[in-house]
């Protein structure tokens, strides 16, 4: 009987390794497929939005250049139509765009918001802001929220946590732009503690001296705080709920009966289990922040991807919009892929079920 069981375990181990490889290959396949599908959907959806970049351009021309001769305007329009490939049939544009994106190193074509800078360069320029300020805030919010949520879940029967839950709930349901505006108006203008907007003081140039870095940090606090407060509250509540549900599990009662130290129970039994869904949540939110909190970027006048997207949308700059969306999708999918591949490390059950 025992021997029999041992054999099954060995067999399971060998097939488990094969399964793991199979899983990774399959998961990667799904990843590529999703990436392509999202790319395609984004391509066609943006082109269904009413408004043609060239007519916007024409409107802009009439504003900037006054009484430009209609024939002259036609020449200009024709040129830009060619530059942006808008004369080609849609399927050709699609194939061309797909080909360039893949084979020419994410070449999304020229941008229209910041012509003649290519879209790729534009995204690369803006990315550090979004990653530096928003991704960092999300990570910090996640760490703080998870910690706080774990404590609140652990002590969920204490009266004081009720207050903490109320505060978190209030913060979580407050739209991030209200928090941002509140911080701008009160901390930025009324109290004058911190600069209310901009990436750094407007007279500075990016150099690695203390004046610039301190300005950068001072300007980063309010936008980071507004993201951290709202997202952190969400993470806290999520973690608290996960924690409470884990606390009801049989293995927790058993661990308590075993006489294991409360700290060990919290760390090895409750937290380890509650963290699994919380990590998945992080991957999704992290990806979404790449353009999800764009309103904060706009309010704080930060030159990140969010601001860029809003501008590109106003000009129907397909190339830039697609580039950003594609990048976000890429980020979300990649993070999800990483989490999916890393989750088995955290949760041994997944190794088997996959």
């Amino acid at each position, binding site marked *: *009987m*025992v021997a029999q*069981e*041992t054999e099954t*375990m060995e067999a*399971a181990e060998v097939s488990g390794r094969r399964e793991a490889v199979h899983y990774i290959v399959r998961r990667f396949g799904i990843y590529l497929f999703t990436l392509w599908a999202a790319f395609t959907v984004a391509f066609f959806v943006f082109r269904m939005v009413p408004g043609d970049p060239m007519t916007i351009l024409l409107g802009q021309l009439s504003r900037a250049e006054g009484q430009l001769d209609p024939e002259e305007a036609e020449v200009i329009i024709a040129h830009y139509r060619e530059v942006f490939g808008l004369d080609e049939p849609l399927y050709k544009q699609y194939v061309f765009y797909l080909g360039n994106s893949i084979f020419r190193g994410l070449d999304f074509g020229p941008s229209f918001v910041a012509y003649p800078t290519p879209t790729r360069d534009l995204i690369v320029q803006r990315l550090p802001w979004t990653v530096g300020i928003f991704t960092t805030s999300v990570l910090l919010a996640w760490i703080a929220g998870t910690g706080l949520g774990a404590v609140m879940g652990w002590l969920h*029967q204490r009266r004081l946590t009720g207050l903490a839950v109320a505060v978190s709930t209030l913060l979580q349901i407050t739209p991030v732009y209200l928090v941002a505006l509140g911080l701008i108006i009160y901390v930025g203008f009324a109290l004058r503690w911190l600069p209310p907007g901009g990436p750094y003081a407007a007279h500075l140039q990016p150099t690695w001296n203390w004046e610039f870095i301190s300005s950068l940090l001072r300007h980063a606090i309010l936008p980071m705080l507004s993201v951290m407060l709202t997202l952190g509250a969400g993470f806290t509540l999520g973690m608290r709920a996960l924690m409470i549900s884990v606390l009801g*599990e*049989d*293995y927790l*009662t*058993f*661990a*308590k*009966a*075993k*006489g*294991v*130290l409360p700290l*060990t129970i919290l760390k*090895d*039994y409750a937290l*380890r*289990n509650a963290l*699994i869904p919380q990590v998945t949540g992080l991957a999704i939110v992290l990806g979404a922040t790449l353009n999800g909190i764009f309103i904060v970027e706009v309010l704080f006048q930060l030159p990140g991807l969010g601001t860029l997207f809003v501008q590109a949308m106003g000009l129907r700059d397909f190339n830039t919009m697609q580039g950003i969306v594609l990048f976000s999708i890429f980020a979300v999918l990649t993070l999800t892929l990483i989490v999916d591949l890393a989750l088995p490390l*955290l*949760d*041994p*059950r997944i190794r*088997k079920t996959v």
Partner: protein
Amino acid sequence: MSTLLKIRNLSAGLQGRRAITQVVSNVDLDVEAGEILGIVGESGCGKSTMAAAILRLLARPQALQSGSMQLTLEDGETYDLLQMPEKKLRQFRWRRLSYIPQGSMNSLNPVLRVRRQMTDTLVEHGLTKEEALGRAGEVLEQVNLEPRVLDSYPHELSGGMRQRVIIALAVSMRPALVVADELTTALDVVTQRQILQQMAAIRDELGTTFILITHDMGVVAQVADRMAVMYAGRIGEVGSVKDVFASPLHPYSQALIASIPQQSGQRVEGLSGEAPSPWNYPAGCRFHPRCPRVFEPCSEQAPALRPQGSGRWAACHLFEPQFEPQNVSDQ
């Protein structure tokens, strides 16, 4: 045999905002050293609450109300479990008394290897890492598991193996008393039998006392020395398994035994009605609405658990001296 655990007037319930709903009421029970005591009853009769109460593992909203539990060890020292401070209790648990919870299939942490889950307990109770590993292998052997089980995650083990790991964990500190709640539920009959045999073997080898809580009369019949029948939070009858099965005193015990399928295709007699929930325990004897032999005092006064001779106890007005048990002879 000496008495290991003396439970007196134990009451526990659900702590509401204003009132306590009593789940277990005024239980008196003696557990003898080295025996396997079966506690049987229908689902919801308060068995598990009592088990948790003995280990003092009641978590809110469950709460202890009153009573005393005196544990007398081999060396003659006596502890009152209900007076013990939490910190001491944590040390005491597992060394002196341990617990196999209900649903023990899910009682192992899914994200830790068995090794870690066994050694963290042992190290916590004063063993060194090496000692703990050695002990873990030892107790696994006692339940017929290979040491390599240590390197597995719970989900890689079958239900029976997991149950055996739990038993091994429960006896790993050589406790005097193990409270096993629904040890074999959810296992197939063959595995169930093996587990029960291993439990008996451990008792024989180490002299560990077991309280076996179950709803399955068959399980009690297989391994227990004595049994207590519980109904609606109260003990109805206590006695040796042999005696109770041969001649159940309490009408509820009678009904329970009558409901066990016999070999010859005899019709099983069931009880009518449902067991009451703690929120509407009937007044008087809690069994009286379903009792086939109910008479006047039953609905007014709760019968006390009284000795009925030859180590048997029962709580039924039929055996109260002040009431004329006129129809006992009818039986």
